């Protein structure tokens, strides 16, 4: 076996995995605050990318302006989604909330494509496609940039959850009734988590848009984000990052071996298998909280 090749696979897998974490962090943020599985994160990611594209390509803004502006727009969008669609379902069974986020996902994808069309466009971040050569190992520049973005977002959120607003968000995640009773505005907190998730979606949309083009395929990142989030423990941002790296490596290395036997396309299979195994063996994931039951 060629060790250099294996290392290259692992490193690039880890970088790709960190990019999955970008999607997963959005899921985790919302789950943390409201225990709501946000199946609309794929749609949000796609919308984020299209908004950046609309601002930069159609409105002619430079990227350094378009991306922050898109972030602001999506931040408001996140608040809006929570206000309009999720708030009234608070306290309903999980199946309805799940369906609601699926409905939002379908609606966002349909509307985005109806407005901007389905042809794939390029983000044009201006990052060279020339791979970086480290020793004998080739590393993709855009993946490196994306991994950097994921890690800095991770650090930012770790700090955020130690601030007073962050602690209040975690309190909301624990117990709505108790939060209300001490004057925490649960609604605003949950809204904030959607806004933050939408903000992250812009980051994920830009990076993934650069890698695979801005089109409907961005919304399919949901499954990988979901798997990463579940393996990490759904409410742990640290978990999302570490699980991202793990899944990235397993997927990249595993696919290299498996593809010989099944004739390609085994990545999806590996990801689905990881998801099933995680839920069966350790539903709360690597770093998720156990639900504490006192009898």
């Amino acid at each position, binding site marked *: 076996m060629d060790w250099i090749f294996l290392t290259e696979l692992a490193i690039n897998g880890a970088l790709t995995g960190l990019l999955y974490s970008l999607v997963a962090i959005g899921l985790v943020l919302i789950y943390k605050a409201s225990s709501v*599985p946000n199946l609309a994160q794929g749609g949000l990611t796609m919308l984020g990318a299209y908004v950046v594209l609309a601002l930069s390509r159609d409105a002619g803004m430079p990227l350094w302006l378009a991306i922050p502006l898109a972030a602001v727009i999506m931040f408001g969008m996140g608040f809006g989604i929570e206000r*309009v*669609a999720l708030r*009234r*379902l608070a306290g*309903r069974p*999980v*199946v*309805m909330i*799940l*369906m*609601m986020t*699926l*409905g*939002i*996902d*379908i*609606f*966002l*994808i*349909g*509307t985005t*494509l*109806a*407005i901007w*069309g*389905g*042809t794939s466009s390029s983000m044009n971040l201006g990052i060279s496609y020339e791979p970086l050569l480290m020793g004998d190992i080739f590393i993709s520049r855009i993946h490196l940039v994306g991994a950097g973005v994921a890690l800095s977002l991770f650090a930012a959120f770790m700090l955020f959850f130690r601030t007073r607003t962050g602690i209040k968000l975690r309190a909301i995640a624990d117990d709505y009734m108790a939060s209300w009773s001490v004057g925490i505005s649960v609604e605003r907190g949950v809204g904030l988590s959607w806004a933050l998730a939408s903000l992250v979606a812009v980051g994920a949309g830009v990076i993934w848009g650069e890698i695979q083009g801005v089109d409907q395929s961005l919304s399919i990142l949901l*499954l990988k984000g*979901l*798997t990463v989030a*579940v393996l990490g423990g759904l409410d742990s941002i640290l978990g999302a990052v570490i699980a991202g790296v793990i899944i990235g490596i397993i997927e990249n290395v595993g696919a290299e071996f498996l593809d010989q036997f*099944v*004739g390609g*396309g085994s990545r*999806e*299979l590996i*990801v*689905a*298998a990881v*998801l*099933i195994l995680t*839920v*069966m063996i350790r*539903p709360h994931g690597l770093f998720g909280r156990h639900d504490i039951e006192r009898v």
Partner: protein
Amino acid sequence: MFYRLSGVHYDSFASDSRIFKVPADRNLAVFFLLFGLAAPFIIPSLYLNSYMLPWLLWTAAALGLNLVTGWAGQLHLGYAAVMAVGAYSAVHAVRFGVPWEFALLIGGLASSVIGSLFAFAALRVKGLYLALTTLAMQFVMDWVLNHSPTISGGSHASLQSPTFALLGQEITSDVGYYYVGFGWCVLVTILMLNLKRTGLGRALVAVREKDFAAAILGVNSFYYKILAFATSSFIAGVSGALLVATFFFLAAPEQFSVGVSIQVLAMVIVGGLSSIIGSYFGVALILLAPGLVNGLVVAASGGLGMQVTDETLAHIPNAIYGALIVIILLIEPLGLGKLYGNVRDYLMVWPFDQLRK
């Protein structure tokens, strides 16, 4: 006034376990049954084949999902995968020379077996985690269908369905297909209507509400969960096989993709969990409304002289489909079935409802 009742009250156990608590509901059901029988003579065959038949078949499928999600409370995002098992096994069985009657049975049983695998996930986790597991299983099934030419039928990944036949009688006409779908849908509906009154139905509801508590009451939740999944999967399998046999005429992986799973779940939830009439409404809305609205958009854009690109038109139904889910959940989270119930309860005492307050 219309219902000649002041509300639903029971004065004996027998009256509580009636199928239709309100006589008017029974009359309505009888009316629709007769209408369904007479439909081929009333409705032009184009509409019969392209609207009524898929509506009935999808309703049968949705009722099966409603059994497991609505009654037993188990989230299921891999329903289309189970339908695919039924469809592919049935078609392969027929191509192998088995008559359709048995092939449908084989399809249903094969689905039951695979569907019970989903149940094993349900024994371990519930709620969101069950949804995620079933979703992952759906992806595995998608992958298997797309990557095994022996199942999906060669390089084009489409499997021609042999001519449908029952009791040695080949069925090729639209009317014939329609009656097959109609019969199956009625059968499933009768099963579901009776489910409410049986111990099985009550046990499922107990498992849904709190499986621990159900276990304390002596309800073996392990057994009932598997039973619910197996029954619902059987319905899924036969419905899937019939869809291929009478509507699609060929089986292809994308007919049973994850999007379809979501669509069936949307039908069930928009219609209303554990509501039978709701499933009929839900399927009608999710299946037919996007197309209708799209037609309206085309007409409106033509009328107003606006330029709507083909691409936009192609994606509008999806946007509408998503919007419908969101809107219905906002108006009435318990779905269209509950809305129907609200209207009925209102009319039942109208115009004397003010007296109650």
